[in-house]
């Protein structure tokens, strides 16, 4: 095998199947979404053909090499071999959509000017054929002077031929028949080049002239000074006088060339037939029907979360309870047993139990992305986004944030307008992510029985709507105040609908489940240990007696009374029943006293005045505080604090039963059960409780200011929201009763 691998750069418009081709060639599992903006980072893979190794670089999908943002300029630099971390590409693989060659060849014509061999992969030939479009690849190759290979990336068809073409192009002669830009433009580009002593490629000099206020111009001015901008503006004026005004001259020249090429190589019907996608889009992108369908899809997703997940959740619950009981039976009482049973098994088990719901959510998201529906959702929301002063591009990161805000924040890299991008970053954490599901499910179950899945889904839907409504409102406020500036345009291509790939969906669900379990086994596990410790210690009374011993004695007395009662004759049962109840009450009193006197209890009670206006007791308050690094921690913490395993036997959900019993005996939470649960949910919907998201915001904005601002405004908003929810709910309950 040759020692030097060949570097292949993969370029293409969004929605050409670029990521699918990358995965098919390299065997990697890059996330493929059927809407623009999925590839926010360039990714690299490898493959071998004819004993030659290829390094494949996947560049973000783009319609043009006219760089509008610094990250787009990096992609251009990489193609020009100007990135120090990567070797210059030996071949550029340009993927185009066979059904839409007129537009997709635009990027290819630009790539042809880079001086690197280009291979064109004509993808989706099957979709084109279904529309009556036939591409004659031999004629296309003859007209462009490039190697052209028809492929079907999703089925892996044509890949061997493509690999062979790449190898041949890298080692062979390169003579593309590129479009010729007007002579005055070429002359001005040469003058610019001479002015900078030929230190940059000619391609960039042309882009400097063509891309008004683009990233190339900013880079040139930054490097060679403001005087260069004046020279460029004068050159553009001369070009306009010569009848080659920029930027129009580029589009005119390229599209004239493309028309000539496609006239020779593409046959299509005179009237484009209406496809199934077109018919569906008439409904799904309709401002009324489309919105209704969007809401219906969301509702169906939440309904499934409640109904389909229950059996598996019960199984996990039973498993963790069984393990806890086995450990209790095998170990003598003591802090280690308490840590294992009351801390780790109860806490972590309480979180892991929500795995089925996370899997269902991700399965839905993956199917909606892969079938092409998410692009329609983004299109529908563009109207709302633009009214809030943001571009429709903001909706894609916001949609990603429904799964997790971290990739959502990273996905904002596709937004070239800095203010739009910052506004989107700051509101993305308001979207309800998968980590909020356990809180919502638990709180909803406190006031809605399991049988009413429809009502439960409706409440869950409302919780998600809080994010969908609040995020644009906050963005609007930001764009009117801190981030004032002009609006930007949004152009998006709607991909054809397709049957979701089982493999893609399966991988996405598996990855999500694995990430969740990893989180449960690391950060949540450690958090549960610490929370258990601060609610266990100090473990002695004021006179130094160990609580554990006192509780064990009381439990023994209770169990003795229970056993005696069971063995006793009917007429002797009543006094023994009273004794059992007395001892059970003593166990409860001792445990409550222990918990109240623990470090957690003392802190919680000191902070109770802060939580009281929200309708929370110190336990809810402390569980919420403990959840600031990761939201899921609240469920485990509540399970520890409410001693879920002490619930009556036979209860399907021990935590729900424990909280129910506790709240029934509480004057506030007993009477205002619904407002309290809603207040907790609203707090979690609006609060920034995710260290990972704060970290990614810091990295993306390169500043501590914005994550701190985000944390402060979201926490304030969450407190206010929870306060209003509880107080208004209290008034309503008071009025009704």
């Amino acid at each position, binding site marked *: 095998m040759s020692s030097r691998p060949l570097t292949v750069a993969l370029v293409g418009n969004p929605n050409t199947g670029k990521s699918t081709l990358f995965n098919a060639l390299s065997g*990697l599992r890059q996330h493929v979404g059927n809407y623009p903006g999925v590839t*926010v*980072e*360039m*990714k*690299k*893979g490898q493959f071998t053909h004819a004993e030659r190794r290829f390094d494949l*670089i996947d560049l*973000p999908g783009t319609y043009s090499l006219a760089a509008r*943002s*610094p*990250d787009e300029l*990096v992609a251009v630099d990489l193609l020009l071999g100007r990135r120090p*971390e*990567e070797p210059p590409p030996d071949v550029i693989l340009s993927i185009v959509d066979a059904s839409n060659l007129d537009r997709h060849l635009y990027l290819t014509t630009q790539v042809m000017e880079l001086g690197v061999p280009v291979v064109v992969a004509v993808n989706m030939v099957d979709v084109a054929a279904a529309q009556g479009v036939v591409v004659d690849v031999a004629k296309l190759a003859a007209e462009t002077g490039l190697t052209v290979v028809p492929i079907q990336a999703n089925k892996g068809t044509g890949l061997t031929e493509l690999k062979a073409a790449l190898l041949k192009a890298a080692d062979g002669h390169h003579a593309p028949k590129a479009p010729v830009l007007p002579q005055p433009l070429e002359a001005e580009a040469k003058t610019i080049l001479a002015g900078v002593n030929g230190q940059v490629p000619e391609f960039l000099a042309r882009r400097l002239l063509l891309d008004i206020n683009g990233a190339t111009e900013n880079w040139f001015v930054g490097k060679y000074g403001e005087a260069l901008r004046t020279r460029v503006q004068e050159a553009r004026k001369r070009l306009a006088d010569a009848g080659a005004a920029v930027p129009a001259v580029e589009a005119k020249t390229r599209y004239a060339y493309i028309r000539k090429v496609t006239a020779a190589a593409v046959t299509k019907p005179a009237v484009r037939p209406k496809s199934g996608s077109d018919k569906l889009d008439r409904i799904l992108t309709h401002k009324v029907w489309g919105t209704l369908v969007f809401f219906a899809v969301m509702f169906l997703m939440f309904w499934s979360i409640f109904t389909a997940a229950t059996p598996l959740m019960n199984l996990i619950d039973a498993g963790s309870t069984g393990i806890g009981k086995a450990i209790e039976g095998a170990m003598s009482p*003591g*802090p*280690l*047993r308490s*840590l294992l049973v009351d801390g780790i098994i109860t806490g972590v088990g309480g979180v892991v139990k929500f795995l089925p719901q996370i899997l269902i959510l991700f399965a839905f998201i993956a199917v909606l992305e892969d079938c092409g529906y998410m692009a329609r959702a983004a299109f529908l929301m563009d109207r709302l986004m633009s009214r809030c002063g943001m571009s429709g591009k903001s909706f894609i990161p916001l949609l990603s944030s429904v799964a*997790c805000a*971290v*990739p959502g924040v*990273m996905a904002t*890299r596709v937004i070239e307008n*800095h203010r739009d*991008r910052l506004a989107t970053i700051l509101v993305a954490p308001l979207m309800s992510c998968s980590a909020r599901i356990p809180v919502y499910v638990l709180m909803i179950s406190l006031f809605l029985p399991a049988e009413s899945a429809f009502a439960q889904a409706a409440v869950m839907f409302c919780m998600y709507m809080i994010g969908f409504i609040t995020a644009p409102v906050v963005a609007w406020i930001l764009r009117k105040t801190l981030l004032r500036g002009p609006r930007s345009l949004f152009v998006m291509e709607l991909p054809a609908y397709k049957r979701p790939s089982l493999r893609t969906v399966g991988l996405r669900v598996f990855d999500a489940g694995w*990430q969740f379990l990893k989180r449960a086994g*690391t*950060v949540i*596990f*450690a*958090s549960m*240990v*610490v929370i258990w*410790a601060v609610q266990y210690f100090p473990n002695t009374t004021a006179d130094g007696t160990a609580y554990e011993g006192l509780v064990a004695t009381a439990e023994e007395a209770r169990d003795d009374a229970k056993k005696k009662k069971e063995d006793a004759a009917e007429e002797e049962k009543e006094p023994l029943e009273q004794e059992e109840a007395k001892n059970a009450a003593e166990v409860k009193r001792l445990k409550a006293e222990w918990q109240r006197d623990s470090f957690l209890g003392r802190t919680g009670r000191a902070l109770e005045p802060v939580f009281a206006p929200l309708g929370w007791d110190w336990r809810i308050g402390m569980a919420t505080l403990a959840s600031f*690094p990761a939201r899921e921690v609240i469920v485990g913490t509540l399970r520890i604090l409410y001693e879920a395993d002490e619930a009556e036997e036979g209860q399907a959900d021990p935590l729900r039963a424990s909280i129910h019993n506790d709240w029934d005996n509480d004057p506030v939470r007993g009477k205002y059960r619904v407002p309290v649960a809603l207040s907790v949910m609203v707090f979690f919907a609006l609060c920034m409780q995710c*260290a*990972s*998201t*704060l*970290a*990614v915001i*810091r*990295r*993306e904005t*390169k500043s501590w200011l914005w994550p701190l601002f985000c944390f402060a405004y979201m926490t304030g908003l969450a407190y206010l929201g929870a306060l209003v929810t509880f107080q208004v709910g209290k008034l309503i309950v008071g009025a009704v009763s």
Partner: protein
Amino acid sequence: MSGQLVIVLLIVGVAVAYLGWTAWRTMAGKRKGCGSGCGKCATPVEQPAAKGRIALPQI
């Protein structure tokens, strides 16, 4: 001090240290990330990230 208490104190100590280390790594760490988006590591700007990835510069 009982054996159980000693083990518990050790476990709690390790848990506290782990949480502190994770927080530091998330906020200030320089370790290369894998680009998976979990946010638990700090992908450095302008440098290739873990094997197989290239980090884009951030605005």
